[in-house]
């Protein structure tokens, strides 16, 4: 009898592992432009870029195939650093998802780094979590031409760890 119970538990456990969780990230724009309007002051002699530039970019995150009560953590990191000392900040819009889908320890924003960092702590499937992006520390003399921004998103089991 005990063996049967254990086998059933094992089946449930393995089937939960094999359940196909899906993560999709849809950017609004495939190309974001930075121009003289982003100078501070805008269009001014010799001015440099503003220290923090909200990008005309957003992303919708969808997490499907997870159990309604299961906790998960969305992490993000860049696979290639940006030009110069430029950094990218990602801010999840907590108002874009129902309150019951927001898990504990949800970060308010993420400064993109080379190692996975928590971006959003979720519970159950979500449809459209909105992310906004802010460019920081760009300089006229260092940031030129087109540079791809590679971001890897990772969906982990369990909620996000508490922040610092």
């Amino acid at each position, binding site marked *: 009898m005990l063996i049967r119970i254990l086998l059933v538990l094992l089946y449930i456990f393995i089937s939960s592992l094999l359940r196909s969780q899906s993560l999709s*990230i849809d950017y609004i724009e495939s190309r974001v432009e930075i121009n003289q309007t982003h100078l501070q002051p805008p269009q001014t002699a010799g001015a440099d870029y503003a220290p923090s530039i909200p990008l005309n970019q957003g992303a919708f995150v969808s997490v499907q195939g997870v159990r309604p009560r299961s906790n998960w953590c969305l992490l993000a990191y860049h696979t290639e650093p940006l030009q110069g000392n430029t950094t990218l900040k990602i801010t999840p819009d907590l108002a874009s998802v129902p309150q019951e889908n927001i898990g504990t320890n949800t970060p308010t924003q993420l400064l993109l780094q080379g190692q996975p960092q928590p971006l959003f702590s979720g519970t159950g499937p979500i449809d459209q979590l909105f992310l906004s992006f802010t460019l920081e520390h760009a300089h006229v003399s260092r940031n030129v031409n087109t540079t791809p921004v590679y971001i890897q998103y990772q969906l982990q089991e369990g909620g996000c760890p508490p922040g610092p």
Partner: protein
Amino acid sequence: MKHRIICSILALFAFLTPSAQIIWTEEHTHFDLHFEPIALIAVSQQEIQLSPGVNTTAGSPAFTDSIATTFHLRYTISPVQPNPQLVHSVSAPAGLSSRWLTAPFLPASGTCTLAPSATHNETNQFLTTAIYGHSGTAPQNGIPVTVQISLSQSEYRNLNAHLHLFNLTYQCL
């Protein structure tokens, strides 16, 4: 035998329940960030009034009078254009000789120098002034530029309201 099976199942549980969190899935994404070349932006246009702001340098009436006005030219130079040029045009009264005085300025970093002073070429356009180099941190308030116009005594006497205005515009090349 029964104990062995139970132990095996428990061991399998322990193996499948690692202390680290399980990565369910990953998605690799990318978008392009395009920094537009910041072209020379010429936005200044200023009228210089000869009177009453005339500084008499040799008494009044004088053979040579001049005005010296400093104004801020708002511009931004692309770092990807090595030698941007700025043309200063002036609608000056015909027959007046005038000089265009510029002073080098030192931005916060690097060098950014206006070409030497030029003389009015009598085509209503000052000689092309080149701006060399750029650091992106030129003076926040713009470049101080001085326009000096020399007038003969007769010209001075014949000044009228229409001659008082010099309209300077800037054009990006």
